């Protein structure tokens, strides 16, 4: 356990020194705050854009607070995922390419500990960044529109954080399997997109797909009835994450360094 903490401590220190712990949450907060603010001021923004003919009347129905929150989650589903994939993509492959694994993995540590420490650090980063973004969205929605019930918000937060963590785990897996970090990010984002699309096309058949998670999170702000069984998808996501850890540890053990 103490060795795991050493590994985790190194990951944490690296996130601090590389300012990852600063810029990832900042991006999330920025996008979280922007969505309600731009939605609220959209008519003014359009009016001031200047390229509208004189006398044009803009009439945009003001969305409800719930709709704004759901829309914000959509933003996190694209830009948030991209930021996470980019910040995790080199976690293992970059260390392998640089050659530092030839030193670290010769020390008597378990390969699972090496991978899971990275995974835990990534999860911590996601939880912190998304909490910042979500709170910013929640605050501005409450200030400009209306308060949103905190119970459903909390569930939405957890479900969507799980989705982010799921995609982050996939990135980590591909970082262990592939040489290139960019390829790892692309693979993980590709799978996430396929899962999300298939889940929204076949919601019944794929009720247990982790791709249901972002939809289920948004649904917390809509009719509660439509989000019947997010727990199945959540359980599936957790299961896949556990498998991802095992496979990544196996990949690291099998190929600790690039053979040159």
């Amino acid at each position, binding site marked *: 356990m*103490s*060795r795991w903490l*050493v*590994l985790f*401590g*190194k990951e944490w*220190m*690296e996130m601090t*020194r*590389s300012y990852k712990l600063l810029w990832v949450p900042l991006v999330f907060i920025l996008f979280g705050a922007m969505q309600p603010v731009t939605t609220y001021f959209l008519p003014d923004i359009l009016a001031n854009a200047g390229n509208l003919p004189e006398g044009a009347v803009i009439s945009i129905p003001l969305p409800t607070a719930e709709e704004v929150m759901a829309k914000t989650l959509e933003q996190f589903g694209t830009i948030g995922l991209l930021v996470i994939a980019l910040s995790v993509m080199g976690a293992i492959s970059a260390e392998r390419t*640089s*050659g*530092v694994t*030839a*030193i*670290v*993995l*010769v*020390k*008597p*540590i378990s390969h699972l500990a090496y991978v899971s420490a990275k995974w835990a650090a990534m999860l911590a980063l996601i939880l912190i960044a998304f909490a910042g973004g979500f709170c910013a969205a929640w605050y501005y929605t409450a200030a400009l529109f209306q308060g949103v019930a905190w119970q459903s918000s909390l569930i939405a937060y957890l479900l969507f954080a799980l989705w982010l963590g799921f995609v982050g785990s996939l990135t980590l897996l591909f970082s262990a399997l592939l040489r290139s970090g960019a390829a790892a990010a692309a693979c993980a984002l590709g799978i996430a997109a396929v899962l999300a699309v298939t889940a929204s096309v076949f919601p019944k058949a794929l009720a247990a797909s982790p791709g249901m998670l972002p939809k289920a999170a948004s649904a917390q702000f809509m009719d509660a009835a439509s989000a019947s069984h997010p727990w199945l998808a959540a359980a599936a996501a957790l299961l896949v994450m556990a498998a991802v850890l095992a496979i990544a540890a196996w990949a690291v053990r099998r190929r*600790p*360094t690039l*053979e040159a």
Partner: protein
Amino acid sequence: MAMQNEAVLATVEGISRSFGGTQAVKDISFTLGEGRCTALLGPNGAGKTTTIRMLTGLLVPTAGHIRFRGLKPGADQRAYIGYLPQIPAFHGWMTGAEFLRYAAGLCGIPKREAASRSAELLERVGIGGAGKRRIGGYSGGMKQRLGLAQALIHKPQLLILDEPVSALDPIGRREVMELLGELKRETTILFSTHVLHDAEELCDDVVIMRSGRVAVSGALNDIREGNREPVLLLGVEDTREAREKLGEWLTGLSDACVVAVEHSPGSSSARLYVRNLDEARRYVLRQLNERRLPVTKLEIGYTTLEDLFMKAVGQA
């Protein structure tokens, strides 16, 4: 100095390793005696690094196995090994001292001890002053030293060093060689090199590799003794006449005491492997006199380890 009955720390039994279609290491075997310093010697591309990586567990042999004393075959040997890669890489954002404490933590050394050991090792490898600087700003030689320090952090039973001095400047080389000389008294060392001189200076045993196989292995003294051949080195004036005369004499040479002649046509020097040095000396001197060869150099002695090394790794 007889060390035959001493304990064997590790045994390499017929290991092979192939990458794709090419076999980098082919069925090699040797043992590492406890407290001995062994050099893995060979030209570039002989399979030294591959062999070393299999010993550290970073590579799995495609055939054969490695046994460590007190460990089941296939058990995790990493706790007993300290390893310096050929080109050590670190986290550039850490300081040297931080990296050593990190390495100590990975070996399960408690925090306080890790800190004192790190400081001590930084001093010992000669970069005490740079401990608080980021590794990103280190020179190649400093990284090599830091790599050595991290390999020593848990007082390993077996220290494995891949080309520890090849990348260093002459002064750094000397310092690290002296440090290795000290370490030799504390632990078992295996290091690879393509420089015979380094091996001769430090080692008790050598394993000479050539294209993936062991060409010669054993205790350095035994090898030196066992392969000592009397040899005469002969040089004549570098004129056409003298060279022709030398060639003539050598082709017509037939005496029981000369075993073999090494002479490339048209060259002004030759090497004669002989059976009995005394006899050969008398014979050759007489012949040189009779034939009035303009000798510039005549060296009478024994083959060196260098000759053996060149013979073992040469293409012949």
